[in-house]
């Protein structure tokens, strides 16, 4: 189950962030496809994917013999919501007000 610690630990590695980037670009890739772009062994990629899966950042689905990997950004959104979203409306309001003031003759 994804805990906050697992999410931050998983993100604190450039290789794992690159794997998330690869899925952002093309979701649902297999291990083989992800290995093509990664400069490391198949075992290395597997190990990193495992950490991303444990953190809930990557979700897998099987289709026949193939396992597809999907980017799941819900844990990141949850972190964002915790510290940032609550202030979003305030900011939006300030911008709306500014727009009104600038547009008034």
């Amino acid at each position: 189950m994804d805990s906050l610690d697992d999410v931050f630990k998983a993100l604190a590695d450039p290789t794992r962030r690159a794997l998330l980037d690869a899925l952002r670009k093309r979701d649902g890739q297999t291990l083989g496809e992800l290995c093509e772009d990664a400069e490391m062994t198949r075992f290395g990629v597997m190990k990193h994917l495992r950490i991303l899966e444990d953190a809930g950042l990557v979700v897998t689905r099987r289709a026949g013999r193939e396992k597809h990997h999907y980017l799941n950004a819900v844990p990141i959104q949850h972190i964002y919501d915790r510290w940032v979203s609550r202030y979003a409306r305030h900011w939006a309001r300030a911008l709306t007000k500014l727009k009104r003031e600038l547009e008034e003759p």
Partner: protein
Amino acid sequence: MSQTLRQVFEVYIRTTPDKLWETLTNGDLTKLYFFGGVARSDWKAGSAYEFVDEDGDTMHFGEVIESVAPRKLVYTFNAGYRSESDRDPASRVTYEIAPAGEACKLTVLHEHYAGETETSKGTFVGWNQILSGLKTLLETGRPLQLPSPEETPA
């Protein structure tokens, strides 16, 4: 490689399958986390459903394909936002609910997109926000409350 575009989201929520099902299907609850969208349907297979905004205008709509409370719900998804995405063909949404200790694992599959469409770009951002808000609502009993302009001190 050749499989059609699909998005998969997963979230663990400390709640029961029944409560989660209720929160996914009851319009009074969906409006608290689904961009204000009120779900309307009897959620029986073959029935129509729609999500409407506070003015009663359709946000998205479709047909219920499979409905097994409180485990699985499948429906077609047509965008009705009066934008470019409305021209995209119907895609398909599946909710899967599985008990996981004291929590539930909710998996959302959105698939059968006709390639990368306006709909698929929008739903990737949308589902992440919706599911995070749903988790907050069920675990704290309160929606992800953004203060309304009236409540915000000047």
